[in-house]
């Protein structure tokens, strides 16, 4: 099987790389085997070996050497395990992969909440707690960064712009197949004792951490590689593959959000890769970027890290904004209010996100003079963010609102992000931040943004596009149960975290002062409640995929292109390339039509005829 082949290829790559590095080490007079130095270099060879064996060689690289390509004959569900280049297959691959990662990281959160039910150490000692906390944070960040873009950026963006696939289908497959090694690296890291630095991996702690820390660095580095390739592909796709007539001001807002997100990814991901690489070099090659005793600077790491990781917050949240506005327009049966302002808001956030990173460093010891400019730039970013809310509020007003499942999640994104955004204003205020930095107030804030905004957005997208992706409807009643269960669980879990943070509980601790036990119990109970809501989701997701009611082409009556083709869409998406006549938001406008799909290909017309 394909994945077994890939694993063998990876192992062979690792051995070859290790042999090469050990030869070099011996030649330079060093001890041949040193697990970190050898593994760090051999990882790159292992990646190449994995990729070649998993399909790059058969379906792609052979032609570089004048050989015949192996014809792609995989069919049925096995396509999801193969090096498939159909953007729809890749979208589903991303979705399943990252949902798996999401649930694993969620289980780690449950362990943490169990430990935090009481002060003192119960189930986990500090070392284990730190390892699990770090892995939870890392995996959730990976999910938040890549799940929505990977799954829906791939599946729906090409259809929404009227294209038959991504611009570089093989590169697309390659960027997906870089994800399993990320999970492997994290597993190796966990098995070899984990790392205790949190997902932020601040130097010099991360330089000194156990070997698990190295594999964390390699995992993040590899994910970065995948993100950059994926972002490039989406940007080229949106720029060059739009259907005739799909000019920029007619793009669905979700496409805009994925496009802007991809630009952020393309520009900034290299900085996290750099930060990880520098730590790896400090660890393995005796370089001293972050070692003050040799002239290095620990603050350098934080600057490079946050130079990526602040924009990364918008990489996590902009797709959720996009899907929220998209859904609100279709389910309010009204044109997206202030479309240009919404696009402007996305672009404004993109531009300004480059100038706010040091708000994570107000207490880091950086120069005092930097505090005011970063305070100001951070507070100003609420202006473009406000434009997103402007568009949402204006669209709902006087609409004909349908509280279907995707709409419920979209409204939840607005509610949760309102809290996340406003508390962000508090944290950008330096005097307040001095007290609240590194407390549970920050933990609550970031979960409101990333989970309440980003992940609720992901679930909105899942419920919205599930019929298109699978050709089946999700069970509505179970979906609504899941929604309310998750929404209540989420808010009861994370609202009290603001309080314990204000009361002086610092983050990343397995132990805390006794006066906070009561509130922490409430948080833990609510956390378990939130965790179990996903059992309902998972059951619904799997059951509906196999046995759900057949989905029509357009169950929501939405106007964007993906709903005008059958569910699931045929391989080429459209029989003939569609011609775009107007933007997709012409609700209530007589004679408004988004697209001409070519004669005879309008599934709608057929349905109308049948009726």
């Amino acid at each position, binding site marked *: 099987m394909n994945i077994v082949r890939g694993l063998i290829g990876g192992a062979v790559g690792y051995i070859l790389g290790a042999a090469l590095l050990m030869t070099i080490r011996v030649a330079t007079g060093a001890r041949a085997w040193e697990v970190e130095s050898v593994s760090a270099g051999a990882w790159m060879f292992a990646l190449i070996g994995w990729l070649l064996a998993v399909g790059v060689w058969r379906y792609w690289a052979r032609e570089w050497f004048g050989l015949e390509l192996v014809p792609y004959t995989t069919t049925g569900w096995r396509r999801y395990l193969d090096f498939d280049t159909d953007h729809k297959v890749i979208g589903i691959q991303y979705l399943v992969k990252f949902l798996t990662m999401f649930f694993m990281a969620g289980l780690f959160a449950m362990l943490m909440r169990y430990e935090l039910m009481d002060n003192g150490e119960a189930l986990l000692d*500090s070392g284990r707690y*730190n390892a699990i906390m770090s892995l939870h944070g890392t995996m959730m960040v990976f999910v938040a960064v890549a799940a929505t873009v990977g799954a829906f950026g791939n599946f729906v963006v090409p259809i929404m712009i009227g294209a038959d696939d991504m611009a570089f289908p093989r590169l697309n497959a390659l960027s997906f197949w870089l994800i399993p090694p990320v999970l492997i690296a994290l597993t190796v890291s966990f098995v070899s004792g984990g790392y*205790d630095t949190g997902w932020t991996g601040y130097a010099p702690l991360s330089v*000194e951490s156990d070997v698990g820390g190295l594999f964390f660095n390699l995992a993040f580095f590899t994910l970065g590689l995948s993100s950059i390739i994926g972002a490039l592909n989406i940007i080229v796709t949106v720029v060059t593959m739009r259907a005739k007539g799909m000019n920029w001001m007619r793009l669905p807002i979700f496409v805009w959000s994925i496009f802007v997100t991809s630009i952020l990814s393309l520009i900034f991901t290299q900085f996290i890769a750099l930060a990880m690489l520098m730590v790896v070099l400090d660890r393995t090659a005796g370089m001293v970027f972050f070692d003050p*005793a040799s002239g290095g600077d620990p603050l350098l790491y934080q600057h490079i890290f946050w130079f990526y990781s602040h924009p990364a917050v918008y990489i996590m949240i902009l797709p959720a904004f996009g899907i929220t506005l998209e859904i609100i327009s279709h389910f*309010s*049966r*009204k044109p997206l*209010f202030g479309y*240009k*302002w919404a696009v402007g808001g996305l672009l404004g956030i993109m531009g300004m996100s480059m100038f706010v990173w040091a708000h994570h460093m107000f*207490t880091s*010891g950086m120069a*005092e003079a930097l505090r*005011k400019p970063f*305070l100001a730039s951070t*507070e*100003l970013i*609420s*202006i473009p963010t406000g434009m997103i809310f*402007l568009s*949402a*509020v204006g669209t*709902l*007003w006087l609409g*004909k*609102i349908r*509280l*279907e499942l995707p709409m419920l999640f979209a409204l939840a994104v*607005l*509610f949760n992000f309102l*809290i996340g955004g*406003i508390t962000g*204003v*508090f944290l950008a*205020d*330096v*005097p307040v931040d*001095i*007290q609240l*930095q*590194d407390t549970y107030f920050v933990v609550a804030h970031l979960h409101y943004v990333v989970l309440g905004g980003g992940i609720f957005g992901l679930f909105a997208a899942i419920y919205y596009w599930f019929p298109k992706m699978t050709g089946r*409807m999700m069970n509505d009643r179970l979906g609504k149960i899941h929604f309310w269960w998750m929404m209540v669980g989420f808010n009861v879990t994370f609202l009290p975290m603001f309080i314990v943070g*204000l009361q*002086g509980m*610092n983050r*990343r*601790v397995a*132990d805390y*002062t*006794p006066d906070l036990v009561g509130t922490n119990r409430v948080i833990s109970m609510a956390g378990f409640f939130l965790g179990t809501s996903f059992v309902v989701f998972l059951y619904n997701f799997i059951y509906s995929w196999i046995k759900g009611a057949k989905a029509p082409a*357009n*169950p929501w009556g939405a106007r964007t292109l993906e709903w005008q083709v059958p569910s699931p869409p045929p391989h080429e998406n459209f029989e003939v390339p569609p011609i775009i006549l107007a933007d997709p938001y012409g*609700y*209530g*406008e007589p004679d408004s039509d*988004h697209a001409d799909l070519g004669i005879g290909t*309008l599934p*709608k017309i057929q*349905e109308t005829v049948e009726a």
Partner: protein
Amino acid sequence: MSRYSSKAGRPLHDVVAFRIVSGGEQESNTRNRLVVVGVAWLIATVLGWWAVTAYDWHPFGASREARITDEAFDLLMLMAVPIATFVLVVIGYSLLRDRDRGQDVDGPPIRTNRTFVVGWLAVTTILSIVVIITPGFSGLDELRAYPEPDLVIDVKGERWSWEYTYAESGVQTRGTLMVPIDTRIMFRISSTDVIHSFWIPAFRIKMDAVPGIITTTMVTAEKLGTFESADELRVQCAELCGVGHARMWTGVSVVTEAEFDAWLEASAG
């Protein structure tokens, strides 16, 4: 087409069936809606203000810096309430009044509204700038107001303990941090290994201890107390530094100047 449903498709060319109302009727209708929303917003805001001022957000505070920080927080809270209530009331009103109740029709094709957009942009811009000026810049300036220390204490973070050295007297301790009340104190903070963070919750001060550099922060304690009287009176490491991180704390005692001098003398001897 009947009522929309999850099972049925919908024609691409939607039947446009929103109710066309005469200009005058529409205007009075809009005015009514705005009045209701406005009144609801006012009520929600007043209730919100009442709630956030009635609730005590802050733990025990014992310094001049705590007053500045808590005031900034309270001011932000007062500013946040009308924004949050506005968004929630408008959305809530729409959700109550503007539902499709089986009519299966589209809403009015409103693409934008100049007054609303300009107003929204103006308000968010002004608010952002106000927040930057106060409590942002003003609070920072207040914190920096008295840069001349009466007492300097060197703080060294080391996995996983704190060491305090009173600069003039050379007295050193790894136990409770003793500070005199009403004295301008400067902490000079350093680390010998990884990054720690010197945080005293009751004082609302926090500054990282970074290997290789010396960072500073200043405080004036205004209330007497000990860790036993309030657990916010502790030095807590706030930057993850390894397994001992959570336990990297010591108590803080705020004492009178006379008591402090006596303690210093006893410790020096």
